[in-house]
């Protein structure tokens, strides 16, 4: 069972649900009270563990949606065949307790220390979650780092954090592409992220931008290859893939 978290170690601990908010028809944000949280960096994860009455356990990793210093928050997309996400998105109520451990990850992170490097964030679906943490961290720091977010969603109602993203700060550009359905009069981009849209959105290779790409595996492969094709060195393209098995 979870005990007191020791700094520098990764221990399971009990968190209490403080709030739940529906983001879209299948996506829910959960705010947690984690008494022994050691603090996180934008882009990090946490693992959630559910235990059935018969002792069977299922673990999934979720990106943290809140900025460092804010209450620990995850945003979970319901996967129809999922073991964990249907519970988190449909059953979990305020006051319920869940087991988690974290923060986890030192690769797909943005500390905010480097304000000179322009960032390109490319999200497919719920791949936008770690970018919300980075965008909020940028705001909280008062950072002037130039950010561009290219966000691919199926339709406008599938856009997670839309209100927040539409109030982007100075120096942050948010570009949507809607792949399946567009509202009447939509003048933005349509279709999947391809070479043309990347060329239009990405920082020119000469500006030494840093790219973060998060989404389903095929999306990440296409975008990462596209950025390398535009002249981004492979090590300047950080990738994070998710799918039905890994959850997000």
């Amino acid at each position, binding site marked *: 069972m979870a005990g007191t978290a020791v700094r*520098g*170690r*990764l221990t399971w601990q009990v968190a209490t649900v403080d709030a739940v908010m529906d983001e879209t028809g299948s996506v829910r944000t959960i705010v947690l009270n984690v008494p022994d949280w050691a603090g996180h960096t934008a882009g990090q*994860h946490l*693992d959630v563990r559910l235990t059935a009455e018969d002792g069977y356990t299922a*673990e999934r*990793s979720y990106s943290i949606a809140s900025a460092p210093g804010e209450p620990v928050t995850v945003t979970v997309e319901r996967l129809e065949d999922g073991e964990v996400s249907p519970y988190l998105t449909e059953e979990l109520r305020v006051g319920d307790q869940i087991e988690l*451990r*974290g923060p*986890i*990850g*030192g*690769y*797909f992170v943005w500390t905010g220390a480097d304000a000179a490097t322009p960032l390109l964030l490319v999200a497919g679906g719920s791949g936008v979650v770690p970018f919300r943490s980075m965008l909020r961290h940028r705001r909280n720091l008062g950072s002037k780092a130039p950010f561009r977010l290219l966000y691919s969603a199926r339709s406008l109602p599938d856009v997670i954090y839309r209100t927040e993203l539409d109030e982007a700060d100075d120096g942050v550009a948010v570009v949507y592409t809607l792949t399946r359905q567009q509202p009447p009069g939509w003048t933005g981009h349509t279709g999947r992220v391809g070479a043309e849209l990347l060329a239009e959105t990405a920082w020119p290779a000469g500006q030494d931008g840093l790219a973060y790409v998060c989404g*389903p*595996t*095929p999306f990440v492969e296409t975008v990462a290859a596209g950025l390398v094709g535009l002249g981004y060195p492979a090590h300047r393209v*950080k*990738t*994070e*893939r*998710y*799918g*039905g*098995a*890994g959850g997000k």
Partner: protein
Amino acid sequence: MTALDESVLDGNAIGGMLFEVFGSEMTAAVATCATCGASMQMAETVVYLRAPGTVVRCRSCAAVLMVVVRRHTQNCVDLQGIAALEP
């Protein structure tokens, strides 16, 4: 694209398990493939969670780098595919 493609993840997804095995944050650690010699951060490896156990493969040559099988509270770890691992 098939559904199978989306069950292929990367090393970000196993950060917690790697922490459990090695006792520290490992997704940014650099692994050298014993088969082809390529170096990559653990987050950049190819990860299959649906195999019996967790299978970690080289992004350059697809050779198996690491297999972790959990049995009750113990992790059985095979690291033969990794020539070097630097935090």
